[in-house]
């Protein structure tokens, strides 16, 4: 001990020295930790705060509420109804398998549906809502609520879904909605941004065209979630906006009548305001109930619709292409008059057939019409007269007039993806597309609306409207704009165009004008001499109201409803000589070989306002199958006129 004193001092010195060095090191390390804390908590606080919020907050988007469609009288034609749904959030369920088996028995679910739900569950994240059923009946809903204490995790909820109260009436105009497909997401950025499981988007028709207006915005629920994604509490809720309401020009009353008239038939009826271009009714038959598509259509229903030979999925009014038949005779006559090919006094002897270019061309009347002038030819729809007249006119000059009145062109710009333009042939068209020269005989059959010429029913309605308003261009529309031009202004513009000469047929200038004034509607005149238009209109009147007219039987004598029209009977098949001899009744011919029945008209004759086109597929003759339908529709439309005008005036006042 004593001898170790010196050594002991050294020992203590060593340890004291070393602990001092160590303390310095400790100080440095603690300073380092302090600096680190400063960096994280002071310098980079913002960054980590953001990361922390990103950790803890998760958004759930709610499906947006879709905008509604209204008819002209503010009736809802595509709305939203409350539906009972059953949701399950898998992560909140203790025993998912048990729950599903209980639900399967209670609802009940078919094996097929059950498998589908399980498959869907495996595809999505555990915190995402799994929709077990989108549309519970009241029965199922109350049953689920009754057993709810045993079904922990199942959530019966009240949701909003599309509904079409008028079922098949508006199917083709509006289209329908269904679950957004992958294609919908790819093609529309807006849908992609707003997509939530179960979102319905427009598949066809206006529902598709106006998707971006209708879709609305998502409501957002912001939840605080834990590390496992479980919702702890709602932090805030942001209400979504309902999509825009779109008001149409359609009249449900007329639309319903059209649907009734075309029941059990294939065909189309459209009605148009000849000044404003507003479409009052537009129906294609057969139709189907678009509500079927909302929750996934059943295989049986889908097969019924798809396999129906009358093609309910096609909107015949704008996508059905047919030979217009005699309904284009007013245009052929107008074209001949405008080009000074004939005068109204030009006469032709009709013997029932006509030999030309080594072929026989038949008039629909086997016995022939005798000697007819232009007026008589329109009244009785004499084919022989029109053969001769078109021969002199030539197809190219006819095409100019026909195109100007809308034949072979789309009626709407881009409103419907499915709309077809049709075709009005010309010599250059045939050369370019078929690689063959025009045969003169083809001019003849084009003159009676057969051959290559193909139009949609709505094109004929527009053609009739543009004739009926005195020969001025109009702008067909389905959407009722608040800032629409008044009827007086439209008529004023037309009257202005009547006296300004240079606006006629200057297609290049027109394009330039439209280029500078894209929104401006100019209601250009489509004729050279209005007398010619008036002549044709009078002939159409006589065709319905004179004893020998083709639609005389469907006339209305009351001047309030009196209308003028033109029938059409379009052959779908070349008729052989034997068949011609047999002269069968429509009902005796196989359905697919029967003629298409057409009728175009406008009324009231004294002060025309509306045009109509009726098309009955394989309906037989226009005068028997189509004109009687038109008569009823015209009556209805004119009956509804006053009420419609009230709305129009209110709209104008509201500006």
């Amino acid at each position, binding site marked *: *001990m004593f001898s*170790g004193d010196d*050594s*002991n001092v*050294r*020992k*203590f010195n*060593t*340890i*004291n020295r*070393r*602990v001092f060095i*160590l*303390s310095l090191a*400790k100080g440095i*390390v*603690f300073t*380092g*930790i*302090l600096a*680190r*804390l*400063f960096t*994280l*908590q*002071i310098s*980079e*606080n913002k*960054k*980590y*705060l953001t*990361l*922390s919020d990103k*950790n*803890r907050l998760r958004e759930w988007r709610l499906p947006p509420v879709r905008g509604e469609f209204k008819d002209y009288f503010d009736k809802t034609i595509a709305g939203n109804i409350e539906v009972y749904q059953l949701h399950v959030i898998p992560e909140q369920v203790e025993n998912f398998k048990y729950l599903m088996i209980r639900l399967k028995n209670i609802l009940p679910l078919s094996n097929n549906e059950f498998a589908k739900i399980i498959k869907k569950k495996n595809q999505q994240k555990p915190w995402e809502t799994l929709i077990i059923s989108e549309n519970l009946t009241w029965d199922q809903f109350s049953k689920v609520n009754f057993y709810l204490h045993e079904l922990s995790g199942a959530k019966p909820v009240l949701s909003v879904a599309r509904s079409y109260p008028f079922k098949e009436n508006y199917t083709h105009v509006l289209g329908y909605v269904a679950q957004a497909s992958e294609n919908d997401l790819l093609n529309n950025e807006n849908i992609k941004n707003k997509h939530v499981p179960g979102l319905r988007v427009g598949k066809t028709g206006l529902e598709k065209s106006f998707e971006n207006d209708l879709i609305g915005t998502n409501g957002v629920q912001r939840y*605080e*979630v*834990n*590390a*496992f994604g479980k919702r*702890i509490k709602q932090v805030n809720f942001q209400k979504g906006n309902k999509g825009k309401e779109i008001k149409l020009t359609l009249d449900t009353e007329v639309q319903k009548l059209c649907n009734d008239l075309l029941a059990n038939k294939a065909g189309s009826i459209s009605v148009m305001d000849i000044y404003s271009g507003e479409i009052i009714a537009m129906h294609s038959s057969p139709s189907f109930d678009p509500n079927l598509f909302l929750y996934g259509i059943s295989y049986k229903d889908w097969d019924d619709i798809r396999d129906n030979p009358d093609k309910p999925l096609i909107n015949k009014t704008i996508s059905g292409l047919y030979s217009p038949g005699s309904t284009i005779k007013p245009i052929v006559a107008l074209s001949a008059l405008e080009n000074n090919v004939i005068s109204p006094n030009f006469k032709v002897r009709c013997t029932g057939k006509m030999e030309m270019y080594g072929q026989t061309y038949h008039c629909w009347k086997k016995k022939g019409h005798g000697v007819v002038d232009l007026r008589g030819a329109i009244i009785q729809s004499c084919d022989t007269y029109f053969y001769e007249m078109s021969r002199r006119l030539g197809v190219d000059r006819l095409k100019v007039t026909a195109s100007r009145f809308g034949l072979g062109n789309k009626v709407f710009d881009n409103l419907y993806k499915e709309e077809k333009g049709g075709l009005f042939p010309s010599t250059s068209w045939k050369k370019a597309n078929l690689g063959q020269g025009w045969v003169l005989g083809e001019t003849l059959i084009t003159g009676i609306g057969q051959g290559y010429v193909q139009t949609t029913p709505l094109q004929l309605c527009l053609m009739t409207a543009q004739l009926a308003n005195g020969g001025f261009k109009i702008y067909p529309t389905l959407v009722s704009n608040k800032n629409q031009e008044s009827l007086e202004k439209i008529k004023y513009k037309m009257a202005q165009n009547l006296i300004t000469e240079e606006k006629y047929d200057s297609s290049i200038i027109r394009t330039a004008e439209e280029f500078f004034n894209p929104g401006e509607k100019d209601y250009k005149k489509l004729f050279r001499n209005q007398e010619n238009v008036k002549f044709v209109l009078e002939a159409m009147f006589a065709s319905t109201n004179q004893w020998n007219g083709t639609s005389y039987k469907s006339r209305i004598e009351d001047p309030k409803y009196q209308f003028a029209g033109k029938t059409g009977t379009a052959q779908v098949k070349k008729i052989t000589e034997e068949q011609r001899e047999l002269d069968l009744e429509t009902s005796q011919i196989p359905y697919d070989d029967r003629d298409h029945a057409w009728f175009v008209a406008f009324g009231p004759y004294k002060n025309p306002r509306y045009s109509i086109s009726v098309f009955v597929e394989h309906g037989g003759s226009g005068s028997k199958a189509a004109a009687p339908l038109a008569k009823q529709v015209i009556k209805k439309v004119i009956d509804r006129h006053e009420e419609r005008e009230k709305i129009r005036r209110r709209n104008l006042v509201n500006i």
Partner: protein
Amino acid sequence: MFQQSSYSEQLTFFQKLKSFDFVLIFSVLLLGLISNISMFSTDGGELLYHTKSHLIRFVVFFVMMLFLSFLNLRFWHSTAYLFYVIVLGFLVWASLYGITASGSQRWVNLYFINLQPSELMKVAIIVCFARYFHREQITNVSSFKNIILSLAILVMPIVLVVSQPDLGTSILIAASGLIVLWLAGLNIRYFVYSALVLLVSFPFVISFLKPYQKLRILSFFNPDRDPLGAGYQIIQSKIAVGSGGFAGKGFLQGTQSYLEFLPEKHTDFIFTLFSEEHGFIGSVFLLILYAILIYRIIKIGSISRSYFGRLFCFGFGSAIFIYVAVNMSMVLGLLPIVGSPLPIMSYGGSSMLATMIGLSIVMSTKIYHKQIIN
């Protein structure tokens, strides 16, 4: 000399009480309070299992520490080897019949407590070395025999702990053991040599590591490598601390913790939770509290006239420093994640027991600082 030693043995109860280090007791109490508040927060603001059992442990072991403080330092001196051997025995027991939890066989069942002997070894190794070098001549410290013997004392428990496996604790035992060896005067060049050997053997060590340990080291260098896997803990811990900001999110408002983004928030990551809720201010306060604690322990060591007391206090103070520094550096992303609790703050009975035993020896050193042990 004789007088002094007899004098100190005649200390009355009140004399002993008077020479208690109240700064030390106060800072321990404050740390205990903070740890219980934090534990309360990890339980989501309710008095649940963790909080209750942590509180009970703290109170029981703190009182125990006060009682043990009255023991003469000689007692610790004379039982030092026994203490070491008993703990080593427990380690062997643990490796044979221990309780396994989360893949590691660390605990022995003592019926009233599940003891983690590796935690006790942290203190035992220091006591053992303090005793070993107490009588050693400074010229003799670096002798071949001493080096071999002290290395054996150090390596035996480390091997046992590594094999549990518990890398974190074994590193901490090794670190505190080495610091004591250095303080005892072991020639500096042995440290340089062994550091070189360590560096060279590093690749071999790596190849012996378990895959999850390798992952931890890799993810330390690049936490974004696998943000939901091994790097998850580091990332979430940094987010928690960073988002705490200057003043913190507030008591019971630590979203990272109560939404369960934080891993092991009761134990190794308790500082993260505290830092998230109390911010830079709170963290600095806690750091200062630890600094005071360590300072007091070193201070007591420096007034001790016995080499045993002095070496123990210096060693134990440095060990506390290492635990704190390693734990904090780890949760702040400065070191790879290894299991290392924060003394007093972290949940865990054995760690608390070991700390309190160490503190009672420190306290005893304070009371008997004038006493010289032969």
